[in-house]
């Protein structure tokens, strides 16, 4: 790339973008709970939230007020500092990860003529950075469970450890094949590779499915939400949490869902390139929304798995599949 082509990055711009990410994603995460309840209700032939506002739309505000005004309890024997730090880790890492993903194409603000690059921090190993940050986010549940001196919490954090060790390999290996094809670790390069309209999912369907499965495990979505499995371990790592501390775990989880949606749509589904008559920014919002909907659909459709089933699935099925996929990709790339 030419040096003059590089977008100018100013400190003010980065700060504005960081605040925007924080505000927008928190709002979407809150609204996501309403959408989730409505869609789950629709799929299970219930009504969902209905009483607060039209179609229950103001349920979000009611929940917010409840969360903010709830009594903040720290159990007697808990390790207070770690107990307080754990939710912050989950929320913070989720937002840091979002700092390195591009969402919209670069654009110029009209009238003031300011060129805005789409990404808050263009790390040239973006994919690895985002995955690393999301992996660090699992320290939240781990520490929360260990700090609260509650058996359910401890079980929850033990499950966090095994879940982390299971899915992490699959996520890395499933993304390795697209990385080999594109030859870069930068999200922007992934996007420009697919600018001719052929999405990477056409070349790498197996990797796409593997990544989605691992992504659901990463965000504790329902087939794999072992950490707070209500039927088995009360609430797992959040058993002793209430009020805003619990809310931070919640926001972190939803932010991670959106991050997984963004990664999947940029790496596999053509990113923010224009498609037919639709401009790029509409396309990427549609893709992220669809992937978010898919997560809710999966939640409505599948029961929980047991921890040993998760390990069996990750280590004995998904990991060999991912390795075979990488090997075949390598052979095909050598042959062509």
């Amino acid at each position, binding site marked *: 790339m030419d040096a003059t082509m590089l977008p100018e990055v100013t400190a003010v711009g980065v700060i504005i973008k960081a605040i925007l990410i924080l505000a927008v994603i928190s709002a979407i995460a809150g609204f996501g709970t309403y959408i989730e309840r409505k869609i789950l209700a629709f799929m299970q032939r219930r009504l969902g939230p209905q009483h607060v506002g039209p179609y229950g739309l103001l349920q979000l505000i009611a929940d917010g007020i409840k969360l903010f005004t709830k009594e903040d309890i720290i159990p007697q024997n808990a390790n207070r500092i770690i107990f307080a730090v754990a939710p912050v880790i989950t929320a913070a890492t989720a937002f840091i990860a979002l700092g390195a993903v591009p969402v919209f194409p670069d654009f110029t603000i009209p009238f003031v003529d300011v060129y805005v690059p789409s990404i808050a921090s263009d*790390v*040239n190993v973006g994919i*690895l950075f985002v995955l690393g940050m999301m992996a660090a986010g699992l*320290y939240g549940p*781990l*520490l929360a469970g*260990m700090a609260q001196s509650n058996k359910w919490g401890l079980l929850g954090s033990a499950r966090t450890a095994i879940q982390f*060790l299971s899915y992490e390999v699959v996520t890395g290996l499933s993304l390795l094949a697209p990385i080999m094809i594109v030859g870069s670790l930068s999200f922007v390069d992934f996007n420009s590779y697919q600018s001719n309209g052929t999405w990477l999912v056409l070349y790498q369907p197996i990797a796409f499915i593997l990544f989605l499965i691992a992504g659901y495990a990463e965000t504790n979505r329902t087939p794999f939400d072992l950490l707070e499995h209500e039927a088995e371990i009360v609430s797992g790592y959040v058993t002793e949490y209430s009020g805003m501390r619990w809310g931070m775990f919640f926001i972190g989880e939803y932010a991670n869902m959106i991050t997984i949606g963004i990664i999947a749509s940029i790496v596999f589904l053509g990113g923010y390139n224009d498609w037919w008559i639709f401009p790029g920014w509409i396309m990427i919002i549609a893709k992220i929304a669809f992937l978010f909907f898919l997560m809710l659909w999966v939640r409505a459709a599948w029961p929980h798995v047991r921890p040993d089933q998760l390990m069996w699935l990750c280590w004995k099925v998904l990991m060999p599949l991912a390795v075979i996929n990488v090997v075949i990709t390598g052979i095909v790339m050598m042959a062509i």
Partner: protein
Amino acid sequence: MYEFIAFYIFAISTVILFSITVFSKNVLYSMTSLAAGMVMISGFFFLLGADFLGVVQLIVYVGAVMALYAFAMMFFDTTKDVKEKYNSPRLVFLLGGLMAVVFVIIFSAPIIGENLQVLSPITDGVGNAQAVGKVLFTKYLIPFEVAAIMLLVAMVAGIILAGKKMDKSLTTTVLPLVDKESEDEILKKESR
């Protein structure tokens, strides 16, 4: 200017966090500050422009410390302090201090002698990952392969050690909680 500030923030927090790791008697504090310190060290790599190494530091150590947590969970009550046994504190102090001094001398000798040379300078236009890959597969190929074989050996050993009864699932096997005789006894006691 920004780099200067960032460096000192990272440096001070790294030192503080690792001192907590060493001095704290609580397993949870030690482990958490260890993990946080590792994350802070990755900050140095980012400051020096070595994005790839920074991210690798992040991913590898986050995973490694997570495994340490699993052991801490199994061996200790994490909400209580660990009572440590000091057999000869003076010897430990002496040996530890000597080690620290030796390491400082080893690492500062080339800086004092001012004969630090850059053997493989960074080429422009080549990303971090590509540069690391190139070096790894040309200059350091044999250490790389040896490390791979060592990991393979460790993995095989681990599987052999843990592999007894691996064909049966532990969660689905129904273990008899009480045998027949003691069950009868309990019933007798209750009937009385």
